[in-house]
C-alpha cells in the first residue's frame, strides 16, 4: 500500500481522535487530578494506596472473583449459542440475534428488579417450587444471585462479538478441512476456535469490565451485603462526597485496562491485531 493512501486512512480517524482527546482524555485527566490530590489540592498517593486497606482489598477481590466467574459462564453459554446461530439459515439469523438483544430494550433497573421479584423468598420461582413440593431456592442476597444478575445483563455482550467473528469464517475453509479428513473436534480446535479468538477477546472485555465495576446488581440482588469495588467507589462519590478517594480507587481499576491489554497481546500472537 502506498504511503499516501495510508496517510489518508489515518486522516479518517481524526474526528474520533479529537473526540476521544476532549471527551475521554480530558475527563480522565480530571480523575487523575482528583485521585492524586487531597482536599487541600496538594499531591498525595494516599487515595491510590487506600486500595490496600482490608476493606478495599476485600471488595476488589470479591469483585474480581465474581466478575471472572460471570465472564467464564457467559463465555461457556455464549459460544455454543453463537455457533448454533451461525448454523441457521441466513434469513433467520438476524432475527434470532435480535431476539437476544431485545430484552435490553427494557430498562436495566426494571429488568434487575424483575429478577428480585422472581428470586425472592416469596417470589415467583419459589411459589412455583412450593406448589410442586420441591425445596425452595434461596439464592437472593447471596453472591450467586449477583453472578446470575451479571450473566443475565451482560450475556448479549458476549454473544454478539463471538457471533460476528464466527459468521465471518469462510465455510469453504471448514469444508476443506473436513475433506482432508479432520473430525469435528479437530475442525473446531484447529479452525473455528482460533479464527473466533478476536470475537472471544472482545466479548470478554465487554463482559468482564462492566461486571467488575457494577454496583447496581450487587445492591439489588446481593441485598448490599456484599461490598464490591464498584459499590465502594459509588459510595465515595454519592454518600461520602469524597471524590478524591473515589477517583484514587478508580485509578486502581484502570490498571485493569493495562492487564487486559497485556493478556490480549499474549493471545494475539500473529501480531496482526490489537487489543480488542
Amino acid at each position, binding site marked *: 500500500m502506498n504511503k499516501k493512501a495510508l496517510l489518508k486512512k489515518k486522516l479518517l480517524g481524526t474526528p474520533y481522535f479529537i473526540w476521544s482527546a476532549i471527551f475521554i482524555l480530558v475527563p480522565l485527566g480530571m480523575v487523575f487530578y482528583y485521585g492524586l490530590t487531597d482536599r487541600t489540592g496538594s499531591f498525595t498517593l494516599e487515595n491510590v494506596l487506600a486500595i490496600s486497606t482490608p476493606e478495599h482489598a476485600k471488595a476488589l477481590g470479591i469483585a474480581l472473583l465474581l466478575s471472572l466467574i460471570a465472564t467464564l459462564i457467559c463465555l461457556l453459554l455464549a459460544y455454543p449459542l453463537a455457533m448454533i446461530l451461525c448454523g441457521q439459515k441466513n434469513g433467520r439469523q438476524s432475527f434470532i440475534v435480535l431476539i437476544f438483544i431485545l430484552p435490553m430494550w427494557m430498562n436495566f433497573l426494571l429488568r434487575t428488579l424483575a429478577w428480585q421479584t422472581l428470586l425472592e423468598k416469596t417470589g415467583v420461582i419459589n411459589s412455583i417450587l412450593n406448589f410442586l413440593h420441591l425445596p425452595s431456592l434461596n439464592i437472593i*442476597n447471596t453472591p450467586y444471585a449477583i453472578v446470575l444478575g451479571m450473566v443475565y445483563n451482560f450475556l448479549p455482550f458476549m454473544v454478539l462479538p463471538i457471533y460476528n467473528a464466527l459468521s465471518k469464517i469462510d465455510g469453504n475453509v471448514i469444508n476443506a478441512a473436513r475433506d482432508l479428513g479432520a473430525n469435528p473436534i479437530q475442525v473446531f480446535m484447529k479452525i473455528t476456535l482460533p479464527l473466533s479468538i478476536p470475537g472471544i477477546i472482545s466479548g470478554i472485555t465487554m463482559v468482564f469490565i462492566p461486571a467488575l465495576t457494577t454496583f447496581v446488581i450487587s445492591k439489588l440482588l446481593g441485598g448490599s451485603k456484599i461490598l464490591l469495588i464498584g459499590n465502594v467507589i459509588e459510595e465515595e462519590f454519592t454518600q461520602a462526597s*469524597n471524590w478524591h478517594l473515589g477517583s484514587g480507587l478508580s485509578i486502581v481499576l484502570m490498571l485493569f485496562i493495562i492487564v487486559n491489554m497485556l493478556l490480549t497481546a499474549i493471545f494475539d500472537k500473529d501480531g496482526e491485531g490489537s487489543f480488542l
Partner: protein
Amino acid sequence: MKKLLCFVLLPVFGLSLLTGCGKSSAENGEVIVYNWGEYIDPETLSLFEEETGIKVVYDEYDTNETMYPKVEAGASAYDVICPSDYMIQKMIDNDLLAEINLDNIPNIKNIGQQYLEQSKEFDPENKYSVPYCFGTVGILYNKTMVSDPIDSWAVLWDEQYADNILMQDSVRDAFMVALKLNGYSMNTLNEAELQAAKNSLIEQKPLVQAYVIDQVRDKMIGDEAAIGVIYSGEAIYTQRENENLEYVIPKEGTNVWIDSWVIPKNAPNKENAEKFIDFMCRGDIALKNFEYITYSTPNTAAQELIEDEDIKNSKIAFPDFSQYENLETFQYLGSDGDALYNSLWKEVKSE
C-alpha cells in the same frame, strides 16, 4: 441486513410522532424546581401554573448526595430545591443558599411552630428554609411474623428474627439505629461511641436479610421480611397495601427528619421561587400533596383539613413528640465527620 435498520428506525419515528413535543410559553417567566422523585402531586404544579401564569420547569433527583454536586457545580441553575436537614446545613455552610424573604411567604403562618423550632437545629434562624415534609424513622413489623410486642431497636439484634431483618443501607441511618441502641447521640463524633456502634452493626450483620433503602416498602408488603427500618411516610403507604404491618417509634429515640424548600444563591427567578414556596404552604395545596405522597405535612392548616379521621389522628403521620425521648435531627458533621462515619460503615459492610 437493511431490514435490521428498519427494525430500529421504524418504531423510533413512529413513537416520536405519537408523543410529539409541545412546549408552551409562559407569560410570567418560569420557576425551576428540583425535588425528590415522586415527591409532589403533579396536579398542584398545574394549579400553580394556572393561578400565577408562571411556568414550572420540574426536575427530580434520587438522593441528597446526587443533588448536591449538581447544585454546587452550578451545572444548571435551580430556583427551588427540597433537600433534607443535614444537607441544608451543608449547603448553608458552603454558602450555596440565599436568604428567603419571609414577607413574600405569608402562608408560612400555616407551618406549625414546633417544626420551625425543629428546623433551627440545621437552620438556626429559619432564614434559609421552609419545611415541606417531615417524619420519623422507626420499625415496621409484620404482626403475623413476630411473637412479642416491639418497642425497641434491640429487636433488630434478636436472633429469632435472623434473615428476617431489613436494615437501612445508608451510613447515617444505619449508625443512627446503632447509636440510639447504645444510648448515644446520632450526631456524635466521639470515637469510642462510634466504635461501639460499629461493633453493634457488625454483630448484627449475620442476622440481616438485606441492606436496602427504597426496597423496604415492597419487601415488607410482600411478606419477605418480618422487621424493617423505614421512614414514617412509607409506613402509611405500606399499611394500606398490607394490613398486617405495624409501625413503631422505638423507645430509645430516633431521627426526626425534615425536608424543606430552599432557594440557591444562583437562582435566576428568586421572586417566582418565593411565590412557589408560598403556594406550597397553602393549606389546600399541602393537603393535596400529603394525600398524594403520604409523607407527613408540617402544615397545620392542611392537617385540619384532613377528612379521614384515622389519618388525622394517626400516630404515624402526626406523632406526639412530647411522648418520646431522645428525638434528634441529623446535623452536617463536616467533611472529616463524614469521612469517619464512612470508613466505619465500610468496615461493617466488608465484614
